[in-house]
């Protein structure tokens, strides 16, 4: 099970990266996260919405009410310019952490070999 601190820290970069592909809505965002992580990133569905609202308050994303194919009301979110900047910053930081971890792992495997 993934630590909840890591789940919380990865929420914003994941949402920003998904919205970079195009406008989406809460339910679709959750389903895509679950599908891409094989269910390992197990968010409580409702908890996505405080995250989305906080990102909107901070000016990273914007929202509009629309309708689904069946006429149900849906709130769509899209990326703003500040959101693209924040996403780039997240990618940089996560890539850094990943490269350091990968380098250390490679060294460990080299020593074992």
């Amino acid at each position, binding site marked *: 099970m993934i630590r909840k601190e890591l789940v919380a820290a990865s929420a914003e970069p994941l949402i920003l990266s998904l919205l970079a592909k195009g406008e989406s809505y809460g*339910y679709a965002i959750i389903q895509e996260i679950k599908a891409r992580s094989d269910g390992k990133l197990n968010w409580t569905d409702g908890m996505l*919405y405080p995250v989305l609202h*906080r990102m909107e*308050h901070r000016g990273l994303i914007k929202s509009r009410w629309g309708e689904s194919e069946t006429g149900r009301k849906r709130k769509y979110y899209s990326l703003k310019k500040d959101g693209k900047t924040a996403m780039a910053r997240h990618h940089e930081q996560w890539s850094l952490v990943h490269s350091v971890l990968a380098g250390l792992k490679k060294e460990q495997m080299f020593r074992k070999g």
Partner: protein
Amino acid sequence: MFNLEPSITEWRRQMLAAGIQTPVPLEELESHLREEIERQTKSGLSAQQAFGIAAEQIGQAPELKREFKKIGAPMEMQKIIKLAGVICAGFALFCPLFMFLPFLLAHELNLMTKMLGLAVYATIIATIVLSWEYNQKLLPAIHNQLLRRAVGIVCYAGCLLWIRFVLFHLPAGVLHTRNIFLVLFIFGLECTAIAILGGIGHGLEKAAREKSAPMDLSASQS
């Protein structure tokens, strides 16, 4: 026999009772609930089973309420808080202008004196603008919304009291000296203090947003 719509109505009632507001965010949560129910029923589950799973996946109302509270004041309230700060800063910027302008236009003063006066006014403007832009970096992140608003209101009240009882009542000793620089300096200092005090409410909102408590996405589902 299970009936979906009354169950959803009861779910809404429980959310409202726990403090989840409508239309934001309850309408969005209900939309999500209905989409999940539809997905589960399409995969073969009964309406009752689908509703149970969907409601569980949405999460418990108290935990949702706790997470929404971490966000801070609603957009409308944040705009009001920002406007109050803008009014204080605007007052602080324009008030000294009415004192400095006659000073700068006075014919008997030489250019050097006038340039000095202009430099003092420019320093006041720069301090007010910088405090407005960056005060959140120095202010603590008060996550308790009630406490944060109370501090903001106390600061605004302080501003109003200062304007009413202090700003236009310079100490007799200062006026006695007939030193125009001293008068302008003290007046400018007081206006800067008013702008800084008035910007604290908005700065606290920015600090709470920027240094916000981590969101808990993995809260227990039952």
